[in-house]
């Protein structure tokens, strides 16, 4: 798998991203204990759901006294964006045949960010599997640690853990906004999401942000697509 064009820092960056996300996993484990989830249930969520924002949303609803139906509904709304990521990644995963079926479990924000950012196909595929495996390992390790030490550390955000996710995406953003359409889509996406927060239920703003492609396509309809 080590073709020469694969950047030597790619695997290291995948592991670093995984470790950073593991810290967020600690936060999830702590939150799960405050919502009275058992170790087995918290681990089942991180192993089987494996999409952070949805897990936080579901447990958040439960801990604030909401019903399981509203918890699952909001979480699924957040999970829907992984379909869009899956479509973006599908061509790169197509050569893997049946391995796409288990591999789809890894289709989340971080694997899409790392894979799509790569300059060539080999690196893109390598980035997907490495980031996916590293995240799966550290996310679950972090969740277990959070459940075990939950009572001891209190509020994990005292340590600034809630800054880890947005900061990692700022660091990953460069290649995605290197073209003018990418920048316009990014700005429009952020504006739509923020604008939608006061008027829509939790989970809707991130999906509505996908509408940013409409003004972007209109603005750049006469220019050649840069893929």
């Amino acid at each position, binding site marked *: 798998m080590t073709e020469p064009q694969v950047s030597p820092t790619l695997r290291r960056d995948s592991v670093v991203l995984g470790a950073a996300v593991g810290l967020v996993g600690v936060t999830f484990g702590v939150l799960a204990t405050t919502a009275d989830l058992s170790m087995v249930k918290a681990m089942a969520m991180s192993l089987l759901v494996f999409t952070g924002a949805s897990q936080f949303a579901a447990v958040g609803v439960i801990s604030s006294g909401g019903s399981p139906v509203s918890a699952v509904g909001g979480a699924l709304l957040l999970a829907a964006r992984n379909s869009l990521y899956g479509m973006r990644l599908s061509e790169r995963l197509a050569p893997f045949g049946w391995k796409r079926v288990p591999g789809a479990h890894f289709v989340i924000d971080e694997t899409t960010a790392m894979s799509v950012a790569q300059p060539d196909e080999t690196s893109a595929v390598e980035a997907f599997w490495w980031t996916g495996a590293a995240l799966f390992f550290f996310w679950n390790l972090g969740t277990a640690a959070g459940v075990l030490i939950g009572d001891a550390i209190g509020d994990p955000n005292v340590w600034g853990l809630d*800054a880890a996710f947005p900061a990692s995406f700022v660091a990953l953003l460069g290649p995605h906004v290197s073209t003018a359409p990418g920048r316009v889509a990014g700005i429009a996406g952020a504006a739509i*999401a923020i604008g939608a927060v006061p008027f829509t239920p939790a989970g809707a703003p991130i999906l509505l942000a996908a509408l940013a492609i409409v003004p972007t396509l209109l603005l750049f309809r006469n220019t050649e697509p840069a893929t």
Partner: protein
Amino acid sequence: MTWTAILVLAAGAYGFKLAGVLVGNRVANPALRRSISLIPPALFCALIALQTFETDNTLVLDARAAGLVVALAATWRKVPFVGVIVLAMIATALTRLAGG
């Protein structure tokens, strides 16, 4: 969180992922393909904005904004990946400690 809720969520989340992967490469329409390629920048910028300025479906300005500013500055100064994350966490933790 009941077992039923966990398993329904797990099945639904995986279903979304798999559907995208299996359907995406059958999309041949160039305009649609281009739309799909614009999804990541739109959603990543939205995620950064929401994870920084949103809590419980309300817009807030708190210590996370300091982390965002530091992350942007560190990325602009070409600080390595792990440094960007650590500096942003420190900035947020210190701002929170100072009562921000």
